[in-house]
């Protein structure tokens, strides 16, 4: 079972992700609504996978991912964003983020992106 930390400032998106991952393979162990909370929860909970929004108040997703990957370079982060321009994706890749999915995503699209990261 994969332990998942959901990071998004939108309750609607967090709900969509939980619904898509509501299966025996995944356990949602925490939710964060900004990058600072994400970094704190990552340190405490050590999830197998993080779904990470980009635009969030307090601390954004790219900055939070950088902090998380600095403490654990093996952390698996799935970037979920409405934006998918080449410069952003290049920035994400440079930070060490290995997978991304565009919003709005269907449950199947999200699962496919998650599995590309976990190798399931």
């Amino acid at each position, binding site marked *: 079972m994969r332990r998942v930390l959901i990071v998004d400032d*939108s309750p*609607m998106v967090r709900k969509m992700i939980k619904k898509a991952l509501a299966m025996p393979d995944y356990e949602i162990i925490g939710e964060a609504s900004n990058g600072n909370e994400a970094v704190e929860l990552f340190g405490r909970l050590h999830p197998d996978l993080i779904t990470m929004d980009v*635009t969030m108040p307090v601390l954004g997703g790219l900055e939070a991912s950088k902090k998380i990957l600095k403490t654990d370079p093996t952390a698996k982060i799935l970037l979920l*964003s*409405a*934006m*998918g321009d080449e*410069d*952003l994706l290049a920035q994400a890749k440079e930070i060490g983020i290995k997978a991304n999915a565009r919003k*709005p995503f269907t449950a199947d699209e999200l699962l496919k992106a998650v599995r590309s990261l976990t190798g399931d």
Partner: protein
Amino acid sequence: MDEALEKKFMLYFANAVASVYTKMLDFQPKMEGIKKEEKTWVKETGVITLVPFNGKFSGRLLLVFDPLSALILHNEINGESTKTVNDETLFTHGEFGNICAGHAITEINNAFRGSNVRLAPPSVFSGKELTFFNFKMNHYSIVMAVMGGKLTLNVALKES
């Protein structure tokens, strides 16, 4: 920024809103018109999402749903049957606006490499005759027919 380029940008936003709306609600909006606004302000009624963006091109997107179509969007996305605007309605519209703006900005960034346009978090308003004033930016309105009523996009922008 010349008018031809401004209109091109408006189409990025219009196409983004149409494609996101179609994917999330399984309904294709119909574009009814685009016009450059002469006044420096707009006055709107309904549920209004404001998404700012900054970079080489900066400005803001306003998405204005009339009250009925605003509730339809909330209910369709969340699988509910709410009859009045509530906090969750506003959150839903905020995220919808964020996604639409993100799609438009993606197209702009890909067409104009190095622009590095980024979104700021959205704000959502609900009310009657709310006035939005534009400071030193041209703005355009695009009207679309959506489920239950009308959606008006108002985009203000400038080249930094």
